[in-house]
């Protein structure tokens, strides 16, 4: 079975479907027309560009080009994480970069080299989409971990200071917030794994089935990607928060006043 193409007129029909939510939003008084239009245009342009790049990458299948593409994805993810977590880039740029690079590359390479075992471990058909999926989920987890950790530390500054004054080391004093932040970051992945297949068919599996693969093969790939996402998200959040402690505090273990962009206790 081959996947049926969607021709241009049908794409126009597809965009027409957006008129329904747009109309409903307008009827309930939400003036989101601009946001809806911008969202749809951005998505279309970004995916069109990705389609173009992927076609080039797959055609070249060059390890250097693949590495470069992964590097670009990681750097964009790094900035995106810090922006969405509301943290000052200069304090966290390296810790986040190291954490997501190590965890994503480790998980993806583990999957490709030890599990999938293609002829070339750098095969763009496997490496690029897998790294993309792992990184995307890793990004969300790290946003939650960093935002939760630093906002709760800021909010509970008196409690943190009390721990310090009672003889806790910096690590001992931040540990309750650290554990809570990691838990919050991995909870969506854990919940997703628990309900997977019951509530919805996951994206990767749907894609494979639509692409003509056997459901059983799609299931195996879905399990593989979920395990990698869970591993890389956990690994990245643990490494990221731990490394970030080096720059976020002054020499007296006090949280620097300007690490958080927007403060609200």
């Amino acid at each position, binding site marked *: 079975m081959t996947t049926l193409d969607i021709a241009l007129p049908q794409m126009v029909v597809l965009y027409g479907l957006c008129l329904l939510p747009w109309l409903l939003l307008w009827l309930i008084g939400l003036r989101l027309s601009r946001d809806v239009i911008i969202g749809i245009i951005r998505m279309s342009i970004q995916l069109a560009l990705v389609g173009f790049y992927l076609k080039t990458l797959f055609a070249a299948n060059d390890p250097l080009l693949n590495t470069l593409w992964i590097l670009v994805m990681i750097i964009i993810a790094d900035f995106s994480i810090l922006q969405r977590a509301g943290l000052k880039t200069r304090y966290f740029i390296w810790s986040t970069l190291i954490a997501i690079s190590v965890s994503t590359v480790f998980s993806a390479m583990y999957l490709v080299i030890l599990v999938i075992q293609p002829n070339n471990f750098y095969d763009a058909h496997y490496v690029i989409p897998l790294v993309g999926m792992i990184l995307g989920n890793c990004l969300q987890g790290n946003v939650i971990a960093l935002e939760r950790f630093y906002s709760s530390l800021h909010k509970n500054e008196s*409690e943190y200071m009390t721990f*310090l*004054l*009672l*003889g*806790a*080391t910096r690590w*001992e004093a931040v540990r309750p917030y650290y554990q809570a932040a990691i838990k919050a970051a991995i909870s969506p992945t854990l919940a997703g794994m628990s309900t997977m297949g019951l509530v919805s068919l996951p994206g990767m599996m749907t894609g494979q089935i639509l692409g003509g693969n056997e459901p059983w093969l799609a299931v195996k790939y879905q399990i593989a990607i979920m395990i990698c996402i869970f591993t890389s998200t956990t690994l990245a959040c643990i490494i990221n928060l731990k490394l970030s402690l080096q720059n976020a505090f002054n020499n*007296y*273990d006090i949280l620097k006043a300007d690490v958080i962009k927007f403060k609200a206790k």
Partner: protein
Amino acid sequence: MSAIIRFDKVSIGVGDKKILSNVSFTLNSGEKAVLCGLSGSGKSTVLKAILGLQSISQGAIYFHQVRLSSSNIAEIRHQTAYIGQEPLLAADNVHDALLLPFQFKSHRANTPSNEQIHNILAQLNLNPDILNQQSSHLSGGEKQRIALARGFLLGKKIFLLDEVTSALDSENKLALYNILDNQELTILSVAHDRDWIDRCQSVLELESGQLIRISQRDNT
């Protein structure tokens, strides 16, 4: 008597505002000193600066003759008990609050026995039933005495006290004075309580961040 804490021309500022200007004094071993002055004169800032919670813009603080820095701040905090006006017990109930510091590696080996806990509560005129009470249900004065009890259980000899007698009645004040009068304790306090001020050997008067007078007397 050896100097425990020494301020050498310490100035502290936040932005353009000066909170402390050129403050110098020495607190000797076993001495009880009190900082007096109007609200906003910088009294609490003096206590916080000793614990590294307030950055110093000029001058230096010495602890056991060693300049306060990142390398000895952990030791200063280890030896010193700070009791603020509204101390945070940081645990659900009083029993857990008293044992909280013993979860940390630096104190783990010295976890007190129930007998030691009951003894210290008795000295502070606190009923042992308080151990089961929720921390959030305690009055300000009770919280301060529990925080003090925690300091004593940790074997601290240096106390930085911020208005610890203000919320107490005369009976409880007396119990507190008796326990604080110990010669082994070195105390730097902030207080408006006349009785406590009269018991201290040194009175440091602050005005708009400046130390305008130091009165010494022999209460021994």
